[in-house]
């Protein structure tokens, strides 16, 4: 399973390295979202800095929908999905591989957006490790749930419009937890402010990773 995970993740990341879709389209989209949030909140820096955690995570969520759609669409051409199914790779490994690849791209995106939040909104990070933990756990959850919903919508002609509607309410807890942990990190909050959110993110990750490992094979039959 682990070997298959690395194979699939390597394949997707190689495609990304050659096509640069995430880097040249998804990450700039995130930056555009940050700039638009700034326009919406006015030129004052105070509301921007206050809203920075939430705006960061909303930008991440919207960008993650694009990253997941990209991850689905690389399989939808040239019968790639059928090829992958015929390859004999463990479905659980395929799920983890695609999740890993999406997560790796989201981490790069979050670094870019994090810098954007600090530079554009004047957010001041006090507790750096809280940022790292929230982004790490949040990314795994987003990637796992996203890959599952991506597989569910893969065969649909309306997947571009349906995926955000299905996925975004489901990942709302990631937004809540991530935002609260970032708020604690920006105000130099004590870890106790972040602890329940930490548990929540772990639970979210565990649930969707486990679900994906179990049902990714059967779910492909619906595509």
């Amino acid at each position, binding site marked *: 399973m682990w070997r298959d995970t690395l194979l699939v993740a390597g394949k997707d990341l190689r495609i990304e390295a050659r096509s640069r879709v995430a880097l040249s389209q998804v990450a700039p989209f995130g930056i555009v979202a940050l700039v638009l949030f700034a326009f919406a909140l006015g030129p004052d820096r105070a509301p921007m800095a206050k809203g920075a955690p939430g705006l960061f995570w909303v930008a991440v969520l919207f960008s993650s929908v694009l990253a997941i759609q990209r991850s689905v669409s690389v399989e939808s051409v040239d019968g790639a999905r059928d090829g992958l199914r015929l390859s004999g790779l463990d479905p659980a490994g395929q799920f983890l591989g695609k999740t890993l690849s999406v997560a790796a791209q989201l981490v790069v995106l979050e670094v870019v957006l994090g810098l954007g939040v600090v530079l554009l909104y004047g957010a001041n990070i006090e507790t750096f490790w809280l940022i790292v933990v929230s982004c790490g756990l949040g990314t795994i959850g987003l990637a796992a749930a996203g890959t599952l919903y991506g597989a569910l919508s893969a065969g649909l002609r309306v997947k571009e419009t349906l995926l955000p509607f299905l996925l975004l309410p489901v990942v709302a807890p990631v937004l*809540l937890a991530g935002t609260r942990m970032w708020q604690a990190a920006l105000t130099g909050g004590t870890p106790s402010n972040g602890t329940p959110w930490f548990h929540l993110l772990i639970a979210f990750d565990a649930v969707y990773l486990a679900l994906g490992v179990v049902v990714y094979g059967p779910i492909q039959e619906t595509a």
Partner: protein
Amino acid sequence: MTTDTSVQSPRVMWATRVIGLLALVGTGLTVWLGLWVTPPDKVQGDLVRLVYIHPGVAWVALYLAFGLAAACSLLYLWPRTRSLFWDRLAAAAVEVGVVFNVATLISGSVWGKPTWGVWWAWDARLTSTAVLLVLFLGYLALRRVPAEPEVRAKRSAFAALFAAVDVPIVHFSVLWWKTLHQGATVLNPNLSPTIHGSMAWTLLLGFVALTLAFVWMLLVRYRIGALEDFLGSGELDMALLERQSEGAGPTPEPLGTADDARAPVKASR
């Protein structure tokens, strides 16, 4: 493809009608008792009359309908119990549940405006209920995508499963969001803790009546779903038959001989 025609059986139709009638009578009785017989509350006055409807509607939507949908989806996914029966029942439960969920939010808002002063508050319960509504609207949107009944059933069952496991996580997240964010402020519904006499009976009757209404709507919606599938498969079969008869039928003859061919039939009448 299995087509469930038992929904048209006289016994099922009769039972559906009886349940519908009971629901109608129960609801009517609840309205009469709730609006005229029961006394107004000491604190809330006439507003308390919403208690006969709002919790009952919420019970149907949040527990009965969505719980049933989750259970049916699991039963469909389990290979031994796989049957389109569970899929249609889950679909019917979600559809009726969404209606009750909207009714929960509306009746809650109507109650919230005079008691709390706002139509909507970002309370944990309200937020969870709203997220639940969006999750199951997504389920219904997925169901509307045209597909073979088996494919649609499997896809929908997975979607219901993914949404259902999210429900406790959403619940805790908004609960903590609320409590860690700010203390309880406006949200202190002054429901009298003890409820007795005619009020308690009306409340109970409201629950029973709304549950019966749910069951009735569920049965009717299930029947419509089954008949839709039946119609879909029937149309395909009929089209296939037509095509086949076209190929196997007699070759068209010149116009002149067509009348002659019909003539003996007329004569034999």
